[in-house]
Structures are given as C-alpha cells and as structure tokens.
C-alpha cells in the first residue's frame, strides 16, 4: 500500500493508462466498442467534438465515483449502480448544457442522452474502476474517452468534408471552387454505413503502422 501511495501522479504506469487507449487499446478501433454512437454523431464535426468533450467529462467522473464507492457496492447489483451513476451524470451534463450552452444543447438534442448507452463507459467501470484506486481510474476514464473522441472527430471530419463539402460548417469545397469544375458532394458519406467504412479504413491504417495489433494465427 505504501509503495502505491508514494507513486508520483504521472508515473510511467499512470501515463500509460492515459495513452494506451489512444492507440494500442483504442476502444473503437481495437476493442470495437461504442460503434453505435460513432455512426450517429459523425455526420458533422461540431456535434462530434461536443460529444467527445461530454464523454470525457462523464467517463472521468463516473470512473472516479465508482472507484470511490468500489468497496461498498454490493456485487450483485453493481451493474445497476453503474447505470445509475452514468445516467445521473448524463442528466447533469444535459441540464447544464440547457442552462448555459442552450444553442449547443439544441444542436446535440438526443445525442447527449445517447451517452448513457455508450458501452465503453460501462465497460471501463466494470473492468477498471471497480478494482482500482481513484487517480488511476480517473486517468483510465479520461484516456479511454479521449481514445473514443479522437476517432469520432477524425471520422466526422472526413464525413463532413466529403459528404457536405464543409468543415465545421465552413464551405471549404465551395471556397476552393471545386463545384464550378464539376465536383459533387458524395451524399453516401452522410449515411451511417460510411461511418463504418471510415472506421474500417482507420483500423487498416492503424494496423499497418502498428504491427503489434495484428493477430497471429
């Protein structure tokens, strides 16, 4: 116990908790979790970024709360306890957005509520926060949420650029004058299946650069 107490806040082990979910243990591209919301919110960049931030907030605090309670939570109802914690945090985020960032909340509408159904959050509570101390749990939550978030943002960037011809609602393609030479937006990029294909391409690129991830047969 004493050794762990004296461990520096950003020891190699702790930093790893934060960084491995960005690449080696990425929740979307390696564990293939949370795909459902990756389809729903990645048509445009702005909702994707706001959702990524909201997930970081919810996941960091949910991990902290569960980690604080981990010795008291009865084994048999632990899933229910986790759900209650996540759902309350999501409602809080939603209420705060409605009160102070009304425009953003109007744009996101149902997507904020969808955070509750994000399986990555419950997965991390179950797999990590229930058995670890508060600080590492917090780092793990933020790391996984960020790993989820950056994929979301990359997918949204390409879908918005190729599907609507804009980036953050700025008409890039129009400014480049591509429409005048016959370029057309690819409406298919706006539809959900293209999110899966984009994620697939990211997985391909990631595995070709990161040999560890290739399963040996």
């Amino acid at each position, binding site marked *: 116990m004493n050794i762990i107490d004296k461990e520096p806040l950003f020891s190699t082990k702790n930093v790893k908790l934060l960084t491995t979910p960005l690449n080696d243990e990425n929740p979307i591209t390696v564990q293939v979790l949370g795909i459902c919301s990756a389809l729903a*919110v990645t*048509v*445009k960049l702005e*909702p994707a970024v706001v959702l990524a931030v909201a997930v970081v907030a919810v996941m960091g605090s949910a991990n902290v709360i569960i980690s604080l309670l981990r*010795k*008291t*939570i*009865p*084994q*048999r*109802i632990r899933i*229910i*306890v986790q759900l*209650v914690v996540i759902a*309350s945090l999501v*409602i*809080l985020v939603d*209420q*705060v957005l*409605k*009160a*102070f960032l*009304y425009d953003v909340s*109007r744009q996101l*509408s*149902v997507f904020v509520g969808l955070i509750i159904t994000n399986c990555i959050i419950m997965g991390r509570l179950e797999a990590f926060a229930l058995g670890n101390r508060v600080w590492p749990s917090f780092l793990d939550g933020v790391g996984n949420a960020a790993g989820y978030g950056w994929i979301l943002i990359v997918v949204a960037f390409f*879908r*918005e650029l190729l*599907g*609507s011809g804009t980036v953050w609602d700025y008409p890039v393609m129009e400014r480049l004058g591509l429409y005048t030479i016959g370029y057309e937006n690819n*409406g298919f990029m*706006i*539809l959900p299946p293209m999110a899966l294909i984009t994620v697939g391409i990211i997985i391909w690129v990631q595995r070709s650069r990161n040999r560890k991830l290739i399963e040996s047969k």
Partner: protein
Amino acid sequence: MKQNNTYIFLYSSAMVVIVAAILSVVATVLRPYQELNIEIAKKLDILRSVEKAEQAQEMRDRNAYVEEEYARYIVDSYVIDHLGERRDDIDAFGVNVREEMRKPLEERNLPVFVAQDDDGSEYYIFPVHGRGLWGPVYGYVALEGDLNTIFGVIFDHDSETPGLGAEINTARFENQFKGKKLFDETGEFVSISIIKPGAVPPGDHNVDGISGGTITSQGVEEMLYDVLGSYRTYFRNQKNSEI
C-alpha cells in the same frame, strides 16, 4: 464485501434517494436559466422570420439585445380561433402550438404576431409545429401584409438526421420560401409543396426538398398545410376587410 439482502436493499434505497435529491436540486436551481433561454430563443426565432435581430450571435449581451429588438419590432400579438375571431383572454406568447394542433380545429387557439418594420410595412408571423422523421419540426412563417406572400420562414427541429433532414434549419432551405404564395389565383388555399429537386419547374407554390431528407421535407410540407390551413378563414376575413 457484504452480500446479504438487507445490505443490498438499504444500499439501493439510499442510492436512489441521494441521486433523486441531487438531480431535483440541480433541475430546480437551473430551471430559471433554462426558461429564460427558451423564451429568448422563441423571441429570436420570431424576429429572425422577419429578418430582424440578425446580429444576435455577435452580441455580448445577447438577451438584452433580443428583448430590445422584440420590443421595437413586434408591435402586437393576439390569439384567434378558427373563424378568425379574436380571443382576448389568452396571451399569444404563451400558446403552445404543439398542444393546439392536437385539438380539433374548432377548439384551437391560434396565435398571431404582428411586426412593423422601420418603414411602416407590416408583417404577420405565425408559429407552426409538425412532425419530422424522428421528432417534432417547428418554426415561424412571416407573411407580408397581403396575408398571402411569404416574407420569410424559420424552421428548426429536435432530432432530425444531421446533414439530411436537419438541413431544414439552414438558410439555403429557408430562403427558397421567400416570395412564395399560399393562395392560388382563384383564391384557393394551396400552401407550399416541398418536392424532389428538379421534378417540377419552380413555381409560386413549390420549393425544392432535401435529398435524403424526404420524410422531414414531407413533415414540413404537412406542417405548413395543417397549421396555416387553420388560419384560412382569418386570412380571408383580413383580406376582405381591407378591400
């Protein structure tokens, strides 16, 4: 770790009570802010349908700016019934069009907002509410003094698909409605059709729909027909009284 049933019952009851208390306190504390936001958003929508309050995004004190513009341009508001009779016992701003549209035509309270521009021309603004693909679509339609020509529209939605149905709240879609007419040459109410782009030559009574957002487009079309249709008698009365 304790595992017996009593512990589990106590634990879950305490958890539920604590969570409920936290959430209700937060909801109560934040409610005034949320209600103010909704009121300001509504006023801003009404103003935007007549192309006012367009600098709202850049204003530092947005709420005060919106209130000021609203007081300046919206000169009158009242509620009418389906026969066009004024009902002075109801406040137009508080009417929930969604609820009204669920009632039979005879019982509907229909709000009218009157805007007066700096040059004296008057516009009539009508709130509309309907169903899109995933949830409600709504907005405001501003008519010119002839109660036939559309001066401007503002649409919004709760949960239409981004990039598809959600495009109804973009200027590109809304601007198409300018100058369109609700009544045909014979004085019949025909409203505005939202059609597949390029299917019919552009006319006074149609605009282009959104590719990939067909059901939302249809929802907007039905909304305009149903809600503005309820005002039919009022439109006719107003026109006749002017002649």
